[in-house]
């Protein structure tokens, strides 16, 4: 390994491993926790815009969105779809702890099945859009978010009006 590669892969520069990230994205609580981290001035974007799969913090929602559409992120998502490589697998490959490994594979399959059943919920949690930093700090939602909130209320008003008309039609 050349000097540059050695510098890149020093232990102090080591990023999160795939099996840890897999655990992160496997449970709803962990996703919620990672997406709603407390404000931390040492992290980029005060720790608010975090990509769970890549274990990276971003400056604002725009850069996070751009990252989500990019190749690096998509490659990481693809890698995470495979079963993570663990110590158990390496031991089983050399002939030790075979039964434990088989059990872990069964657990993994069950977990994947569960995630597939609740796919929409997991995706919705992972793709939460957040307001900009000013809004988060002050607690006052920005214009876009206010419109969104109003937008949902408007839709429900239209629905109730339609229901009222339908009832009148039935009555008459």
């Amino acid at each position: 390994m050349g000097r540059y590669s050695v510098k890149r892969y020093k232990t102090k520069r080591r990023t999160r491993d795939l099996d840890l990230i897999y655990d992160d994205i496997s449970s709803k609580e962990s996703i919620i926790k990672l997406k709603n981290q407390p404000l931390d001035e040492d992290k980029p974007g005060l720790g608010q815009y975090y990509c769970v799969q890549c274990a990276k913090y971003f400056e604002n929602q725009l850069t996070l969105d751009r990252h989500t559409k990019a190749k690096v992120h998509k490659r990481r998502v693809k890698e995470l779809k495979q079963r993570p490589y663990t110590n158990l697998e390496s031991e089983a490959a050399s002939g030790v702890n075979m039964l434990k490994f088989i059990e872990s594979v069964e657990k993994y399959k069950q977990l994947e099945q569960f995630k597939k059943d609740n796919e929409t919920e997991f995706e919705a949690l992972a793709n939460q859009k957040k307001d900009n930093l000013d809004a988060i700090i002050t607690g006052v939602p920005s214009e876009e978010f206010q419109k969104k909130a109003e937008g949902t209320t408007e839709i429900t008003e239209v629905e109730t009006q339609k229901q009222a008309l339908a009832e009148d039609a039935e009555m008459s």
Partner: protein
Amino acid sequence: MRVYQCHFCSSPVYPLHGIMFVRNDAKEFRFCRSKCHKAFKQRRNPRKLRWTKAFRKAAGKELVVDSTLTFAARRNVPVRYNRDLVATTLKAMSRIEEIRQKRERAFYKNRMRGNKDKKLAADKKLVEENPELLRMREVEIRRRAEKQQAKQNAMEEEEIASDDMMSDDEEMESASESESEQEQQQVKQKVLLKNKRKVRA
């Protein structure tokens, strides 16, 4: 004192060998040598590197599901010492190892079974596809015909020059001599060609 398994290649890590890396979540990763350690740091997937055991098992190159492989396991509960138990365990270990090796060998043989036929088919295909490389026989025949032509021309000239100098028997002898010379030359040619091929290969 225990012999551990390398996290990357699954080879045994004997005492005084390798490196153990402890991650922030307190998980240990042992490596047999710096090759595996560096590959781990570069985040390579062992299942994709052909020389690791993980690849071989995942790709079906070795015996994966077998009852003899389920015996070895880390049991975290210590067992009270019992001499008979130790004796039977040791006997069982060697016997199980024997059986496992036999099964692995059978698996390997099974995997390599169709190789001869495949090779023969491939060679046949090669011969059919490249006829121009194997025209040696034609070349030989052509050269022999040319030589005969040359000899005949020479003999005709001699006849023209000195009529009836040679009797029939002498002609036959000389003809046979010339033929045997030609064959010797061709044999020599054949040998030369063979040597050339061998030198190249």
